[in-house]
């Protein structure tokens, strides 16, 4: 709940300046990995090592989710024997790891990125295509009242 409160505050006190997209890295095949290249737009916003750590940790999580080994074979065989009905009641390993990732991103946002005016969107919300990092600037307000809240700030952004 505290995290949401912070994000709301972020959105109310700052306006969206731009978004940076970290694309997928396919050099190791079709596994889900993101590029660790530091985008120039973030030069002045966040330290390089924080960014690289975040992306590397995310890459490790995805590699763990997609790992083909004992656990995944067991899960696959069990599912096959039960004509895949077991997936209705059981959560797959991938889904469990995705929850971990979601939590990790929330933590990172809280600790590192939101205080610096940045917001990382969970890649699963973008179809595992990109890591979207929103860069917020301090709002140079044009007198918009606080009662409209997020509605007016976002609508002013969309028209802007």
């Amino acid at each position, binding site marked *: 709940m505290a995290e949401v409160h912070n994000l709301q505050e972020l959105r109310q006190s700052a306006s969206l300046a731009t*978004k940076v*997209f970290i*694309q*997928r890295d*396919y*050099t*190791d*095949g*079709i596994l889900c990995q993101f590029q660790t290249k530091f985008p120039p737009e973030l030069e002045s916003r966040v330290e390089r090592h924080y960014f690289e750590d975040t992306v590397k940790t995310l890459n490790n999580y995805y590699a763990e*989710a*997609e*790992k*083909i080994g004992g656990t*995944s*074979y067991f*899960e*696959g*065989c069990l*599912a*096959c024997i039960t*004509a*895949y*009905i077991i*997936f209705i009641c059981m959560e*797959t*390993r*991938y*889904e469990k790891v*995705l929850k971990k990732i979601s939590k990790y991103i929330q933590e990172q946002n809280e600790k590192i990125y939101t205080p610096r005016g940045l917001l990382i969107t969970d890649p*699963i*919300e*973008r*179809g*595992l*295509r*990109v890591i*979207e990092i929103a860069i917020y600037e301090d709002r140079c307000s044009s007198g918009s009242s606080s009662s*409209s*809240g*997020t*509605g007016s700030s*976002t*609508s002013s952004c*969309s*028209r802007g």
Partner: protein
Amino acid sequence: MPPPMKQCEYSQITTQSSSPMESPKKKKIPRKKWEVFPGRNKFHCDGRIMMARQTGVFYLTLVLIVVTSGLFFVFDCPFLAVTITPVIPAIAGVLFFFVMGTLLRTSFSDPGVLPRATQDEAADLERQIDIANGSGSGGGYRPPPRTKEVIINGQTVKLKYCFTCKIFRPPRASHCSLCDNCVERFDHHCPWVGNCVGKRNYRFFYMFILSLSFLTVFIFAFVITHVILRSQKTGFLNALKDSPASVLEAVVCFFSVWSILGLSGFHTYLISSNQTTNEDIKGSWSNKRSKDNYNPYSYGNIFTNCCAALCGPLPPSLIDRRGAIQSDTPQSVAPPNGITTYGATQSQSNMAAATPLLQSESSPMNEELPVPGKMTISSPCATLTLGQPTPPPSTSSLATETILADTLPLKEACEGHHFLTPEEAPSPPGMLTPGSPLTHSHTMHVLNAVTQDSMHEDSVRGLVKLSSV
């Protein structure tokens, strides 16, 4: 005069805050994401079930399997259980249960659809492409083809840009023109299961055809056994008279078994070499292309390839079907009917009716140059391939046995460098989706449509946000 649907939408937004009671007859506001899904899919059970738009052949499949198995249980099993062993109906029951489970799983699940890019993503990509291409081209015609090259395990793979979804397609992904979606690890669009076969449901599909082969062979063998045993007692003609259903079952099984067994064998080969139907038919990793050509996705041995395909982790669905639409949900780029950017010519669609639907490029490494004035896409996203062919709906399973035989001559036809765009490719007449007639009216308005769409979406988005406050 504005179309009535649009009128309803706008007036509903304005009356939203004043009196909700006034809107019972008007169009329901979409609450869940599946209701505004941009692809051509049908959703049931509040987004839990996802299928292609054309499902007629799927129902045929269901009917054939259920009726044949039903007749077997009713007419043949009692005799066989008494004369030979009751294990026979038990095995048939297990097989039938397995077949139905895997069929429904294949048909109803998300094959691995890639969600379309959000406005911001699309704009960012466009910017990067412009920088990469050295934006010299004016706004009047289509910019040069958009590709990215990636080296995967030593092989150069081209990532193509999908004009509908506004993304660079990951390796092995392809755009299905019937469903109008990019699908990961696209294998083919199968009308028999009424869905695409892709990363998420390939194992179910394989299990389905494998178990169906066993079931078909099983039923066929025991129907024959039944007739033979009976005719030993009462003579052949009397046996047929006593059990007329057996004749029907034998006929259906006889004609199905060849194609289904053939298909199972083909997919077993594909799995063991870790290829998709798409790649196999195009010969993407064939030695004939060049000596250095090899499949970069293969794990090297058959066992690992099989395990990875069948027992690997099941990826989650990337499209959040049952999530609620929030006011700040980014709108994905969606041309009005998703096919505005593709041109099609009628003659090619007729020719393509019997040919596999694939990108028959002269070489996979060279991107085709756009044909000026023709508005055909330079990076065709044709996705329907002939692994599971698309027979006209009027034929029964009889058609399937001839279609596999067609794959070989069709392979030669593919090398003939004819230019298939996704709208030409999809299906033979009778199965033709409504895509192609619409494209003719839209090709002239491609560029205008795209800019108008983004403006339209912005204004709608603004209105939706205002109404939700």
